[in-house]
C-alpha cells in the first residue's frame, strides 16, 4: 500500500488541479503566462520572509506576490519599458534577492530543490487544509467575478460599456493568481507552477470548441497530470513538480493528434 505521505500528496494535487484548471484558462486567454512566472519567482522571497519572521509560508507568499503584482502595475504606469521587460526585471530580481536572502539565513537549512521543483514528502496535513480551503475560496471568488472577467477577456470595451466593471475583476483575478501560487508551491515548486497552469489548459484548447468545455478539459488534464506525475515520481524517485508537468506535456502531445484529425475532417 501507499505510504501516508503519498496519499497526502495525491489529495493535495487533486485540490490544486481543480483550481489551476479554470485559472489556467484565464492565464492562457489573457496571455498572462509570463505574469504567472513573475509572481511565482517572487514567491521565493515570500518563503525567506516566512522563515525569518517565523510566519505561515502560504500567507507570506500570498502577500509578497500580491505586492510584486502591485509594483508591476505602478511600474507599468511610471516607466517606458515594455511589459515583458518589466516582468523579467521583477521575476529575476525577486528570485535573486530571495536566493541572496537565503544565503544570509545560515541558521536555517533550506531545501532549495524542494522549493524550486516541489517536494511531495513535504506536504503536511496542514498543507492539505491550506490547499483545500484556500482552493475552495479561490474558486468561489472566481465564480463571483466570472461574468465580468470573461466578458472583458473577450472584449474589454464591451464589458466596460455595458457596466460590468472589468478593472475590478482584473484586480481580483491578480490576487487569485497570487493565492494559487501560494497554495501550490510546496507540491509543484515555484519554477513550474506556470507549467501546471498553462500546459493542461493548452491541451484543453486543442480539444474544445467552447469555453466551458475548455475549463472542464483543463481540470481533467490537470487531474490526470497529477495522478500520472505523482505515481511516476514515487516509482522513479523523481521530484514531484517536474514529474507532474512532464505528464501534462505528454497529454498535450497526445491532444495534438486530435487537432490533426479535426483539420483533416475540415478539408
Amino acid at each position, binding site marked *: 500500500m501507499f505510504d501516508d505521505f503519498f496519499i497526502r500528496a495525491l489529495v493535495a494535487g487533486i485540490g490544486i488541479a481543480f483550481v489551476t484548471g479554470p485559472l489556467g484558462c484565464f492565464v*492562457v*486567454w489573457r*496571455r498572462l503566462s509570463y505574469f504567472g512566472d513573475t509572481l511565482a519567482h517572487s514567491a521565493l522571497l515570500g518563503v525567506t520572509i516566512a522563515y525569518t519572521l517565523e510566519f505561515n509560508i502560504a500567507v507570506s507568499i500570498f502577500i509578497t506576490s500580491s505586492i510584486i503584482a502591485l509594483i508591476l502595475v505602478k511600474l507599468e504606469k511610471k516607466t517606458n519599458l515594455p511589459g515583458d521587460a518589466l516582468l523579467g526585471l521583477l521575476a529575476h530580481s525577486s528570485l535573486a534577492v530571495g536566493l541572496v536572502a537565503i544565503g544570509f539565513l545560515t541558521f536555517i537549512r533550506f531545501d532549495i530543490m524542494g522549493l524550486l521543483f516541489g517536494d511531495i514528502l513535504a506536504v503536511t496535513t496542514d498543507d492539505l487544509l491550506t490547499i483545500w480551503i484556500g482552493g475552495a475560496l479561490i474558486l468561489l471568488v472566481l465564480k463571483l467575478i466570472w*461574468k465580468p472577467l*470573461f*466578458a472583458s*477577456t*473577450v*472584449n474589454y*470595451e*464591451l*464589458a*466596460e*460599456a*455595458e*457596466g*460590468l466593471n472589468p478593472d475590478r475583476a482584473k484586480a481580483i483575478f491578480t490576487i487569485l493568481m497570487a493565492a494559487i501560487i501560494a497554495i501550490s508551491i510546496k507540491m509543484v515548486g515555484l519554477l513550474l507552477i506556470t507549467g501546471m497552469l498553462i500546459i493542461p489548459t493548452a491541451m484543453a*484548447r486543442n480539444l*474544445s*470548441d*467552447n*469555453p*466551458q*468545455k*475548455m475549463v472542464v478539459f483543463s481540470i481533467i488534464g490537470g487531474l490526470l497530470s497529477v495522478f500520472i506525475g505523482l505515481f511516476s515520481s514515487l516509482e522513479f524517485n523523481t521530484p514531484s513538480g517536474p514529474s507532474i508537468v512532464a505528464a501534462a506535456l505528454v497529454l498535450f502531445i497526445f491532444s495534438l493528434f486530435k487537432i490533426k484529425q479535426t483539420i483533416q475532417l475540415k478539408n
Partner: protein
Amino acid sequence: MSIEKNILVKLKDVGFEQNGKWLVKGVSLQVEKGKIVTLIGPNGSGKSTTAKIALGIYKNIEGQVEKFTNNIGYVPQKISIDWTLPLRVKDFMLLTDNLKDDILNEALTLTGVKHLRDNNLGNLSGGEFQRVLLARAISKKPELLVLDEPVQGVDFTGEIALYELIKKISEKLNCGILLISHDLHTVMTATDHVVCLNGHVCCSGSPKDVARNNEYKALFGEQASQTLSVYEHKHDHEHSNDGEIKKN
C-alpha cells in the same frame, strides 16, 4: 413626463485628449428615450471617440457625462477577438447578460443569423459577425443602444433591412439609439437628430436641416430619399491623415 426624465445620456462640452492631441473637443449632445441620434463625419472626426466617452470607456475626459441608465447595448466599430479563446455565437450572445434561450434565438432571428448559433465565432464572415454583434446588443432589450457602424461589411440589401430593424427596435423597445455612420451619403430618415463631427461639432439638427444638398436626392430619387437622407456640407478646413487641421 418631463423631457428631463426621458434623457438617457447627456454629454456636456466633452473632450478627450490622447498623446497631446485632442481627438474631440467641445461636444454636447443628448440621447432620449425612443429617439435616434446619428453621428456623422469623415474618418478620424471623433465619432467613435464620442461614443466611447458617452459609454464611459474613456475616463480622463474634459466636460461632463451624465448617464441615466445602466442597461446598455453596444456594437463597437472594431472588435478583435483572440482565437486562443474558443467561442461560439451562442457563448458570445451570453457575454454580458444571462439570456433565456428563446430570447437569444429571437434576437438572432431578427438579424438573420439564427442558423449560425452553434458556429464558432472565428468562422463567420465579416457581415455575419456584424449581424451577431447587433443581435447581441439588442437581445438584452437595452434602454440605450450605441451602434458604431453597425452594418459595416453587410451586403446592400442586408444593410437596408438592418437599418429598418434598428428603426423598428427603437420604436418597439422605446430605447434611445446613438448611431454612428462614417457614410456621409447614408443616414436614415428615421434619425431624429444628426450631429456632424469633425473633431468638434460642425453642425447639428434634424436631418432635413443638415441635409441641404439636393443633388443626391436627384441621384437616388424620391423613393430612396425616404429611407436615406443625404448630407453634404463645405468645410472651411481639411484634416491631414494624422488629424491636424489644415486651413484652406
